[in-house]
């Protein structure tokens, strides 16, 4: 417990009037406010996003860069650190794209509704296969032979599908033409039918009116 001397000392210092510190206070508070910075993540966002976009664009652009192209060295560099696919992976990915578009073309053809769509997908398949063929020179040995066979098979399938599409389209056109003829025939016989119908209507109008008369009879009869 503090004695009287300590209490007097404390009282003495407490008696010191507070200074007029409004200006200092305002400056300190303003200084602190001026130092306020956006959160670290926000400060880092713009440069990080810019870097990400640039690197992504370069990386994506370089993934399939062929020897001699500007981005080929970058692709090799990315590949060496595991950030880019190996050439065999690139070829396989392009072949998969060809397979997918070929399957979608076959589906469209089976549905028999969109021959143009099926043809476009098949041509896209051929384009992917051409791309894969160009990348084959990156491969060697067994891997290259296997992919070359796979590309050749898919190529055959794609051309077969194009023929099938043409046949189906021709068949569909023939069928449509027949349908149109049948329709015309139906329209011609249909007019006869109409005539017949109208005739029957005429025929039936007699009895109908007769029955009307009949029915009106009792009705009027009962009214009577």
């Amino acid at each position, binding site marked *: 417990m503090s004695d009287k001397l300590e209490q007097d000392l404390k009282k*003495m210092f407490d008696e*010191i009037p*507070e200074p007029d510190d409004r200006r200092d206070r305002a400056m300190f508070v303003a*200084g602190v*406010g001026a130092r306020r910075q956006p959160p670290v993540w926000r400060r880092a966002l713009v440069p990080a996003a810019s870097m990400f976009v640039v690197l992504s664009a370069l990386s994506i652009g370089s993934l399939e860069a062929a020897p001699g192209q500007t981005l080929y060295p970058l692709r090799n560099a990315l590949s060496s650190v595991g950030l880019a696919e190996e050439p065999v992976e690139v070829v396989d990915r392009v072949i998969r794209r060809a397979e997918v578009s070929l399957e979608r073309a076959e589906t469209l053809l089976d549905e028999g509704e969109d021959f143009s769509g099926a043809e476009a997908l098949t041509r896209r398949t051929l384009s992917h296969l051409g791309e894969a063929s160009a990348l084959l020179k990156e491969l060697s040995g067994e891997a290259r032979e296997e992919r070359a066979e796979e590309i050749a098979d898919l190529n055959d399938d794609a051309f077969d599908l194009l023929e099938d599409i043409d046949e189906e389209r021709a068949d569909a056109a023939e069928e449509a033409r027949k349908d149109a003829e049948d329709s015309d025939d139906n329209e011609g016989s249909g007019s006869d039918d109409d005539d017949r119908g109208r005739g029957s209507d005429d025929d039936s109008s007699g009895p109908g009116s007769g029955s009307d008369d009949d029915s009106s009879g009792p009705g009027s009869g009962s009214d009577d």
Partner: protein
Amino acid sequence: MDERNLKRLIRSTARGDEEAAGELFDLYHPRVFRYALSKLWDKTAAEDVASETFARVLRDLDRFKWKGAGFEAWLFRIASNLVTDHNRSKQREAPQADASEYAETTELRTPEWATIAGETTRELNGLLAGLPADQREVLVLRFAGGLETDEIGAVMDRKPNAVRQLQFRALEQLRGRMRDGVEI
């Protein structure tokens, strides 16, 4: 204010929270000013020291790490260094003056609050001026700055036991002088 809330206040100030900055200023500026005035006996100089202390807090708060005696020790260390710098510059301005002349000069600048205060305050004020520098420093930090023993030790680079001894001797001297009715 407990340590947890003080840490929160300091963190908020460091992040740029103006409300926290105002609270921190209101909490410590009067204590720093009292400490500086008790050391310098010059209101204008004490205001300058307090102002510069908070300017340095503003500048260095990002680098402040709460360790040992904490924020108050760091704050009063800044103030103590500024008081020392001020005294050195005053001595350079008056190189011919010896210690007694300097003490007389500072006593002549006894601030108004001490002059118009009660007899006990005036007496204590004079007695404090006669204490050895380190004993006086302990009492000023303790009673004007409101620091605890470990915080005073951190400001003065002394161990807590040494601070206790200095405080004990200072108070004993003051009691003795008051008992003896030493002329101030």
